[in-house]
């Protein structure tokens, strides 16, 4: 997957989790949780959805890598390069 494709996947997963999600003013370098007003339960769903779709096991200590949209892409790029 390319970086842009990964970005789309993340946004698609969030949209799927939260019907109120708005991405118009999303800053890719700022924490997703604060901007989209998500809580830890929603965050768990992003991790679970990635696991379900791509069999990705993300250990809890690496959750901070998923903080912003850009950090998500950086973290997932090597893991999803063949996906």
């Amino acid at each position, binding site marked *: 997957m390319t970086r842009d494709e990964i970005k789309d996947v993340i946004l698609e997963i969030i949209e799927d989790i*939260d*019907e109120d999600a708005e991405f118009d003013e999303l800053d890719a370098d700022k924490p997703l949780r604060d901007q989209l007003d*998500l*809580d830890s*339960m929603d965050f768990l769903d992003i991790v679970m959805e990635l696991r379900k779709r791509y069999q990705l096991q993300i250990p809890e200590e690496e959750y901070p890598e998923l903080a912003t949209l850009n950090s998500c892409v950086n973290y997932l790029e090597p893991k999803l390069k063949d996906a």
Partner: protein
Amino acid sequence: MADYQLVIIGGGLSGLAAGIRSARFGQKTLIVEQHHRPGGLNSYYHRQGFLLETGLHAMTNFAPTGEKHAPLNRLFRQLKLSRKRFITHEQLGSEIIFPGVSLKFSNDLELLCDEIGTVFPAKVDSFLNLVKEVEAYDPFAEVEWRSTRDFLLERLGDPLLIDMLLLPLMVYGNAEEHDMDLGQFAIMFRALFLEGFFRPEGTIRDLLAMLTRQYEKFDGELRLNTPVAAIMQKNKRVLGIRLADGEEITADAVLSTAGIPATARLSGWDIDEKKYIGQMSFMETISMVPRDNLRQEQTSQTILFYNLKAELAYKRPETVIDPSWGVICFPENFHGLQEKLAKNVQVRVTNAANYTLWQAADADEYRRLKEECCRQSAESVAKIIGNYRQDVVYQDSFTPMTIERFTAKSEGAVYGSPIKIKSGRTPWSNLFIAGTDQGYLGIVGSMLSGVTIVNQHLLG
């Protein structure tokens, strides 16, 4: 390999929510329910053409769409259900009625503040501070039991105001007698006073259908008429369940929503069962009454919490029921439901009841007690809403025995064990409990309990 990754005992609201959570991420999940329909305490039945709901008076924890952190909306996201398409009807208003004084409240906290300002003018500031403290309190932190009564006495100092505030909070969710744990108080205070009452569009049947559809959409399996005889185990792990008909089903993990005492009996869990059996149970009578025969002032409200004595006696009564305090609910009195009102409206009256005395009665005596208690209850309630007994078109009651039969809650304790296990853990590393005995209460609460326990322990 086990037959299922997760087997859930009980198809009530906590079991269904847990099932959706587990199945949503592809885990092979089975819910077993002893009755022919799901719902547990919150279900329904048909009599003489009426669909009668059990349990549900109103849902608590109202939140408008868009308030992302509200429990109701978090729950919908977790279950992947659309909150926007879930139509809600807010309460008209409710009232706490004590001898000579009353406090009205609605889903707007300001009404309760104004009422306290009128009846207890010196206590308004203390009440506002209390609200702030409850908002900041974390009810799920694992802390020692703390007395709500002591806490309130320190802050409000007025025994009458304290009893009045506690009546609705206790009768809608307190498993303990007299006092309640501060964490439970915070949960109930938020659910009732800060968030408020509403009804979903339709009946509990529609809500249950929405949940089972969602569960089945994720390929979850639900088996009705399937009572469990035992939780099978070896060393410190459970292996699955054995059904009443002898069939054995293996599972990587088991989640029981049958309550601590029933789970202990199924698993051989060595606990002092008595400590986990709640004393509070109730009798409820549903009457269909011509609307015009009721006093307008009270009956235009949603829920009346009444106490005919000076002090609140929240405990198992020494008599079959205690009609001196209770709840009067008008399930049609919600915004948006008033236009389609039929000539007859439901009046539901709930009173504390003594399980042991109901259980001791043989079939004839049980029927006689039911009639006698209906009469006693209606006589008490007449002091608040007028006499309607002669006008009743149809009437039916349930007792602690009915509750025990349909919910598996020992001694018909609707709110379960007075001691909660907030972690959901048991002595077995792969057996968990969820639902009322885990500490969340109410319809939204019990569903959140199922969700939380699956999230914490069962999404491995």
